[in-house]
């Protein structure tokens, strides 16, 4: 077990780099043909998505083991391995990454006019980095991918961003980097005490660091909490989201934030189960504060992109609550809600981008009555807004309800009155309607009184195709989520049992 070299995950992770190489080699033959670069980038991302579908095809949902293992010794002295594998915790994240990256890359076709070559190179590098994060099973390798994703994102925000892009990009970089350093310390401690960095081996040798796991847990938790972002570590998010180019926001919301929640599931729960149990009430409380706080703060925003950014704080609060309910339903809901948030919020950012391309403003007071001139766009936006709001029958509800369900069953992790957590979290459902409908009304309803809006054009075919791709999954997960749950069911079951068994053994 956990040996061998299947190869498909390596191919998947590094395939975007093929596109990077081709784009970089272009110049000698072809002087800055933007159109060609875009085609190569889109082609690469589509091919990566197709490879990820093959991964899905080879994936066996009936086991909690790591699968499709690619493992080889990398740095012998420290017993560091090149170790990629997939299981129920990561398979959906991998698919989400390839899917969102594909749409983000395709969606920036018209939005990026300058330094096209660098832009697509960074996008593809980012995709490779994110895939590595979700697939790496060796902590050292994981850390490298984890930090690597910062670099392209830093440049994407810093070069193609809005007015305050430099401030935002530096803040994004420093904030996340600072958190990661504590994680690096924790990684080194565990790796050196156990003489291995591979996650399965560390879990097996957990006893060696069990007595300091509280500190190790915190080291990991702070890095991940900043990425999520868990209240109160969210301050970088509105800046980064508002200033990032559309595709950057899509990827940031769609995938990068999920790296934080994924980290909690992949490392904190299995490596430090007792500490997870200990911290569960605290993190669940922060998550709920985030749900309510994010929603209230969203409501008062005037900038539509910032509103969506704060709504992420609220939505990710649900995901965190699901994880730290330490129940099967909660964790499954959390994983699926991660996907849902990626789809809904990614799509919302895309839609904002479509408007921004025409009007070059994100102030909601500049809009109003847009439905009259963009009926198709408005109807599609409504559906996506409703999905973000958690309307049953669309994807958001499936995730939120499963999480809330899990949280009320979480008497083991959250104490004898888990319903208090559930009740407070559920107010987020009301507040989501409040701020999202208010946003929708200010942009799309009311009189069309701003002359600048009267010449807005409805979506074109390309934009429609991208929005419909998002919608396909939004509706699919909404009415038939069973196959999605099936992909992770056994893995989640195994790890939740594992955590509860470990906690039960504590005297």
């Amino acid at each position: 077990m956990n040996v061998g070299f299947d190869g498909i995950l390596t191919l998947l992770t590094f395939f975007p780099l093929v596109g990077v190489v081709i784009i970089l080699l272009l110049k000698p033959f072809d002087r800055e043909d933007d159109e060609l670069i875009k085609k190569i980038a889109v082609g690469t991302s589509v091919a990566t998505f197709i490879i990820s579908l093959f991964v899905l095809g080879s994936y066996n949902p009936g086991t909690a083991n790591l699968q499709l293992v690619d493992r080889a010794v990398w740095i012998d002295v420290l017993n560091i391995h090149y170790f990629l594998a997939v299981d129920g915790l990561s398979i959906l994240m991998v698919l989400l990454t390839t899917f969102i990256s594909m749409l983000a890359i395709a969606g920036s076709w018209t939005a990026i006019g300058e330094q096209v070559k660098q832009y697509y190179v960074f996008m593809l590098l980012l995709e490779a980095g994110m895939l590595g994060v979700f697939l790496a099973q060796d902590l050292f390798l994981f850390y490298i991918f984890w930090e690597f994703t910062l670099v392209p994102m830093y440049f994407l925000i810093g070069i193609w961003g809005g007015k305050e892009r430099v401030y935002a990009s530096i803040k994004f970089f420093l904030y996340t980097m600072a958190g990661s350093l504590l994680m690096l310390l924790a990684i080194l401690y565990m790796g050196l005490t156990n003489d291995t960095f591979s996650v399965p081996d560390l879990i097996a040798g957990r006893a060696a660091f069990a007595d300091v796991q509280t500190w190790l847990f915190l080291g990991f938790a702070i890095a991940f909490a900043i990425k999520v972002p868990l209240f109160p570590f969210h301050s970088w998010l509105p800046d980064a989201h508002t200033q990032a180019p559309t595709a950057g926001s899509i990827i940031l919301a769609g995938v990068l934030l999920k790296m934080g929640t994924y980290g909690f599931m992949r490392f904190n729960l299995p490596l430090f189960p007792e500490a997870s149990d200990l911290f569960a009430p605290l993190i669940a409380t922060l998550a709920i504060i985030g749900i309510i706080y994010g929603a209230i703060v969203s409501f008062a925003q005037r900038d539509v992109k910032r509103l969506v950014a704060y709504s992420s704080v609220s939505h990710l609060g649900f995901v965190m609550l699901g994880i730290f309910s330490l129940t099967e339903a909660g964790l499954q809901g959390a994983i699926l809600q991660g996907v849902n948030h990626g789809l809904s919020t990614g799509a919302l950012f895309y839609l904002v981008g479509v408007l921004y391309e025409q009007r070059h403003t994100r102030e909601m007071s500049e809009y109003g009555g847009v439905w009259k001139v963009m009926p198709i766009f408005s109807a599609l936006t409504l559906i996506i807004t409703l999905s973000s709001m958690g309307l049953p029958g669309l994807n958001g509800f499936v995730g939120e309800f499963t999480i809330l369900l899990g949280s009320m069953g979480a008497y083991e992790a959250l104490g004898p009155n888990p319903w208090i957590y559930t009740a407070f979290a559920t107010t987020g459902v009301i507040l989501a309607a409040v701020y999202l409908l208010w946003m929708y009304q200010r942009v799309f309803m009311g009189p069309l009184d701003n002359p600048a809006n009267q010449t807005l054009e409805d979506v074109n075919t390309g934009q429609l195709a991208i929005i419909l791709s998002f919608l396909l999954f939004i509706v699919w997960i909404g009415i038939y989520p069973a196959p999605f749950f099936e992909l992770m069911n056994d893995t989640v079951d195994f790890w939740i049992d594992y955590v509860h068994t470990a906690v039960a053994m504590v005297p």
Partner: protein
Amino acid sequence: MTEYAFAPLLLLFPLIGVLFNALFGRRFVQPALYEGEDQEEPVAHDHATEVHVDVYEVKTEAGEGVDVDHEEVDVHVHDADAHGALDQQHGEIHNDPTGERWSGWFASLMSLSAFGVAVALFFSLMGHDFHGAVVPLFDWFRIPAADFHVPWAMQIDTLSVTMMLVVTGVGSLIHIYSIGYMHGDPNFSRFFTYLNLFLFFMLILISANNYLMLFVGWEGVGLCSFLLIGFWFDRVDDDGVPMNANAARKAFVANRVGDFAMILAMILLFWTFHTLNFNPIFDEAIHLFEEGQAVSLFGMQFSIATVLAAVTTLFLIGAAGKSAQIPLYVWLPDAMAGPTPVSALIHAATMVTSGIYLIVRSNVLFEIVRVAAEAGDVFPAPTLVAYTGAITALFAGLIAFTRFDIKKVLAYSTVSQLGFMVAAAGMGIYVAAMFHLITHAFFKALLFLGAGSVIHGVEHGHHSLHDHLQHDDLEPEEHGFDPQDMRVMGGLRHQMPVTFWVYLIGALALSGIFPLAGFWSKDEILAHAYNPDYGFFPVYIILTLAAIGTAFYMGRQVKMVFFGEPRHPAAEEAHESPSIMTIPLIILAVLAVVAGAINIPYIPFLQEVPDHPHGFNLLLEQWLEHSIPSFHLSAEGLLNMPYKPPVFSIFVGALSLLLALGAFFLAYSVIYGKRPTEQHEEDPIREVPVFGPIISAFGVLPLDTLYMRYLIPGFNRFADWAAYRLDWAFWHDFVHDNLIRDFFVGFSRFASDVLDDRGVDGALVEGSARFTRAVAGVLRLTQTGYVRNYALGLFLGVVVLLAYFLLVAG
């Protein structure tokens, strides 16, 4: 099972209608939009935009002269004038009439097909001894690890089929009526898309076999309500406030408050029963209750009644949101901003009754709590339901007294009648609640559609005035014209005879006049409350007062709208609506007359009361008892509630009939008969001693004012504070930018300018350089450049070394 295999068609037909109108409707209705190349699209949109801008200008002008009536807090948003104005002012209809017919009739056909399916299901049930079945469609949630399974499945039983018949039947009539009513609206096809979508979600709601699927419909109809209230989303009132969009949002948010409770209730149910399907929950609940077993929840043991008391209380909150009960009724009057057919379909006949449906569906849970509460074990949630309904019925009725907007009166009346149903459900007479639900659907839909017909007529009368007279002649009066204000009407019985007669039937049915439908359904509720065996006498008093109020405000309305002399030229010019609108009205009027027959109680002295079956009496009860499990429980005495079939109470019936007639007459001739109320005039009832001030006090909408004046602005300010002070100024700017960044920058500046520049660089680096230079300055003196000196040094060195080796080392 297979006999109901066609049931999914019920959902499929409306869905096809939605897709048809959503994808192609616009092309049918406005072919001009799509005639040319795609590039022409924005031009066409511009045209539509310009038309609407015109409408606002008319409105804004109209607003200037109005002295705003302070008592009338809610601002009128007139619905019928926009398209009418379009027709008249531009002298052309932008919609293709054939396309309109396609769009509207296709939607209506889908609705009628669904009705056909419902009828087929009705006969299938009859053919199978009323034995219902669950028709599974496909899995929805399936999480084996959490033992969480929820299917998409349809519950076909007598209760759901009853609702299906009402919803699709009344729905179809309203679809057809809307073809006439919405004629000429630029968004004709969008309207029918929404109507079909509503039908789809409503059918999901009532055909669900589990709470979660019911919740899908529950939220879905809320969404459609949002869309339809906001159908004319670009309208603004005199102050530039987008009233329709606000009303839509208010409705959705108020519903969401109820949904909050629904979600919690469902999760509690799941952790108690590990399923959300109706039948297993009910069976298990009865089993647990009878055995007195505890349930394990949150790692502790609870009695089943305790859990169910919490669940049913939460259901009450959910129902209060959807069915507009205190304290969440405030959205329904505002919802009148939607087109009138919508008010009839969603906000009177169907959607708002889903709270009652929920309670009736969950009757087992409520009955268990009732029994346990009688023993004093748990919170008496069903009693709270009964009183909530009764008090809502009375209060909403009182608010309706002073409204002048024809639709607002009906809206408050709806809230009031929903209160009757909720009270009935709370008292445990689920059949009576359903009975009143059905009859109310008929006569309230009739009243709303009739009101729509009146508004339509007055509106067209108003526009024909424009054509006949010089604009200037009308100028002074023109400013305040509101086609929904009953004070501009009067005498319409001559101009609109069909509408008058059907409206009168509806009003009498609503007032509970024998032998119309409302009499029977309302009386069944009152009779039960009156019966001292059940301990709901206060409810009887409250509901009787509410019933008097109902008759009073309906008498007032009929008088003001149809009798007397026309009080405005527009009313003189009003014409009867087209037959596509009046035929549905006539059908509904017939139903409002005869629907009482479906559940006629036993008449004392004339009939013996047998145990079972009941023959032609209590048809609805015999039909519904197959899907109301607590009914069986009661009959067998399992829940300690001896079952007695409803018997007509002559005292109650006669009293309420007398009171209703008296109130109707009082309004008709005594208070509103003296002198017609002119526009902008106070209501004469306010001058009645003692009673007038009470009514006036209710005129200010206590809860609505509380929410809109205090709660909402408070929330807004809090959100602003949280977003701009707490999160931005404090957390983002102060903590991160000032404390962390500026501290870091300050420190790094100190490090760079002081520590590094003067310390490391100044003292160490440059200091060593200075020291070297100083030493070198001295040392350079030894370098004379003369070879001789160097040679001497060499020799001296040799001498020293020699001396060292010889004297020291040696």
